[in-house]
């Protein structure tokens, strides 16, 4: 009896999840099909699930006129994601280790400093001043990831992983003469691997999807990331379509074609869409491990 009931439930859940995932997929399918359609038919008939008048023209157009820019933006995005993730994980785990280590006098103070920024922030203006006037992060590559090197939430997540590692392991290592450096690199990092992968994924996603830092700190087109290119395009369309454009009188600028918008969307989503299925298990495992042991 119990098995049939749970079977029924299972079927229900599967159906529910299937429907839900189809709903999530629809916009994406529309975007892909839109990017593969011809502009004239999209303009005349609207979007559909199958490309209207299948053509690769849009991609040819995009890569023809903006190939250099897109490729550069892609490489900047990749570079920022790689550099950013590596340095952010390093900084975050190091901070987390210090906060989690037993017997360190100031660990609570450090933890509080980090926690405090979760509750109160200085606001955009001081942040901008600090970044541009004092740290001179504007128009530099490192400006695209340094401000995000420490995500406090992920730091505490990592602290929890470290705390879940039995303290005795560290004690024995210490007795064998290992210093904090050795314990951190040779023991904590390998043992906290699952947590490490989880926060790396979070960071990688954050760096890949970010357009705020380039918006604030970059004016040199050579440092545009792919997301910022996309944001730029969308922001311009939105503004021109809204009533505000009337204030800048007569600002008529031909908006990019519908199909071009869709093609850009596909280009920015593509790498994540390809990688995600392979990495997703780490996400799930990472979060579950933390919850059970923490």
């Amino acid at each position, binding site marked *: 009896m119990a098995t049939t009931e749970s079977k029924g439930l299972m079927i229900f859940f599967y159906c529910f999840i299937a429907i839900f995932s189809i709903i999530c997929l629809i916009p994406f399918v529309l975007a892909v099909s839109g990017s593969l359609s011809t*502009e*004239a038919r999209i*303009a*005349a008939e609207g979007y559909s699930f199958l490309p209207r008048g299948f053509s690769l023209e849009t991609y040819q157009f995009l890569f023809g*006129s*903006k190939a*250099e*820019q897109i490729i550069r933006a892609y490489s900047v995005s990749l570079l920022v994601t790689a550099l950013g993730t590596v340095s952010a994980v390093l900084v975050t785990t190091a901070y987390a280790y210090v906060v989690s280590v037993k017997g360190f006098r100031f660990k609570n103070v450090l933890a509080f400093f980090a926690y405090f920024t979760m509750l109160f922030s200085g606001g*955009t*203006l001081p942040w*901008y*001043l600090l970044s*541009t*006037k004092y*740290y*001179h992060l504007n*128009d*530099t*590559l*490192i400006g695209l990831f340094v401000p995000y090197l420490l995500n406090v939430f992920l730091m505490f997540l990592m602290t929890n992983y470290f705390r879940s590692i039995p303290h005795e392991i560290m004690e024995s290592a210490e007795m064998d003469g290992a*210093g*904090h*450096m050795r314990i951190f690199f040779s023991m904590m990092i390998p043992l906290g691997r699952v947590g490490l992968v989880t926060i790396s994924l979070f960071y990688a996603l954050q760096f890949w999807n970010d357009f705020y830092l380039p*918006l*604030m700190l970059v*004016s040199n*087109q050579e440092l545009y990331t792919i997301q910022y290119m996309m*944001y*730029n*395009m969308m*922001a*311009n*369309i*939105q*503004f*021109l*379509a*809204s*009533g*505000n*454009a*009337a*204030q*800048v*009188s*007569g*600002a*008529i*600028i*031909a*908006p990019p074609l*519908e199909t071009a918008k869709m093609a850009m969307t596909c280009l920015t989503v593509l790498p994540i869409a390809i990688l995600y299925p392979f990495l997703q298990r780490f996400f799930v495992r990472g979060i579950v491990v933390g919850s059970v042991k923490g």
Partner: protein
Amino acid sequence: MKKNRVWLSLFLTFAFLLSACSSGNNGSANTNAGSKEGSAGENAGMAPAKLTIVLYGDETNRMKELAKTEFYDVIKQEINAEVEFQFLPWSEYAGGKTDLMLSTGEDFATYTDINYMVKSVAKGVYADLTPYLDAAPDLRANVDEASFTAFQLGGKQYAIPVGNKPNSAEFYSVLVRQDLLEEVGMTSVSSLAELEEFYDKVHALHPELIGYASTDARRMLLYDYTDKNLYWQNEFIALDESAEDDQIISWFESEDFKKYAELMRGWYQKGIIPKYAATNTPQLQSDWNSGKAIFWAGTAARPFEGAATITQAVPGAKLANYFLGTGRPKISRGTYSTAFFVSSAAKDPERYVMFFNLLQKNQELYDLFAYGIEGTDFTLDENGRLTKINNDALIPDWLLMNKNFMRFDNSVPEDFIAEYKAWDDGAIISKGAGFNFDNTPVKNEETKLNGVFTEYLAPIGSGFVDYDEVYPRALEKLKAAGLDKYIAEYQKQYSEWYAKQN
């Protein structure tokens, strides 16, 4: 031992960070030095200066190229300044990063509208350009004097207008798809009844097309709901240009608004304004651009400015302007396109003004900044008609647009150009032109009123909801938000200003 390692690793981290910082700086310093040597020494007399001009929108490849080559050389030669063009997304216009740059004291100039100017001058972040007006003699000759007064506050010039083009009666005409008009056997539109007849006929033939591609028609419908010649100062306040007095009209409290809202309700129910307009306003313009709408609000330039986009989707599309009534003079706010301000932190405001001067100095420079290099980016035929070889936008030409210099392409018929140039004939300058409301005494009220406007009045005005049903509540909200105080303050300031003018 342990300690040494910790110190070593700290040292390494710092070294890494420092090297990253300094390598970035070195890189930019080198390129600057390199380009400086390339063209220095052409212009004696003036000390070299560095200017940053912020523009909004997309930077095209050609613009990037020219900014480093021809533009750079010409500007260097003319005013001995190195200009760097910085592009920001439109979302940062009059706010966002522009605000940040102003408040953190960066040295730059960009364009502004009057509202943003008033706000920013109150914060003290715009430089007073009055002393430098003489640095722009050519610009002053080519830009209307009234445009300058529009950007003055308390007798001081806070922004330098650019552009000089017929722009009276903006959005007071109906921009009609002439090809559709002819298709249904009509030749012109001269009243609301004819416009609706036109819609009905086209709708019967092409049910997939939407009617009006906007949510605001208070200007074009003027002839049908009022005898006044209304001109709006902002969403809440209008002036009657046919009366010679200093009375302001509280638009939402007027009988005219009621009649207008009822007209719009009719349009909405009839489907002239599509149902999706209430939730997806940006789609309207998209539809217009892709030739899926029957009419739009017109301006002098729209028949040829907008045609290029539409003809991509509908090759035979033609556009024409019609007024739904006669006998009321066209109202102009001034002929400028926009105006440049200089941040108060700028080291050399005068040089910025000299740069603005170049934008409207003569045909040669105008051609260069708006269209590029002859032969490479565009060609001219014997009539001076323009054919673009390269479609990349440079310094946006809507911004520079000056009737003394602007060029038309081959597809624009002669009579269009004649009509365009004569558009402003008989137009009057609004009696409110040059008046700038200081909103500091009613700042809170204004914020609240804007909220009520978006939530209640805009939907009523666009006909999405019924006037009789929603208006009483909307009025209550307006009053609660302080409409009376706001109107009184506006009236007070306007009367004072008006008295000074006459």
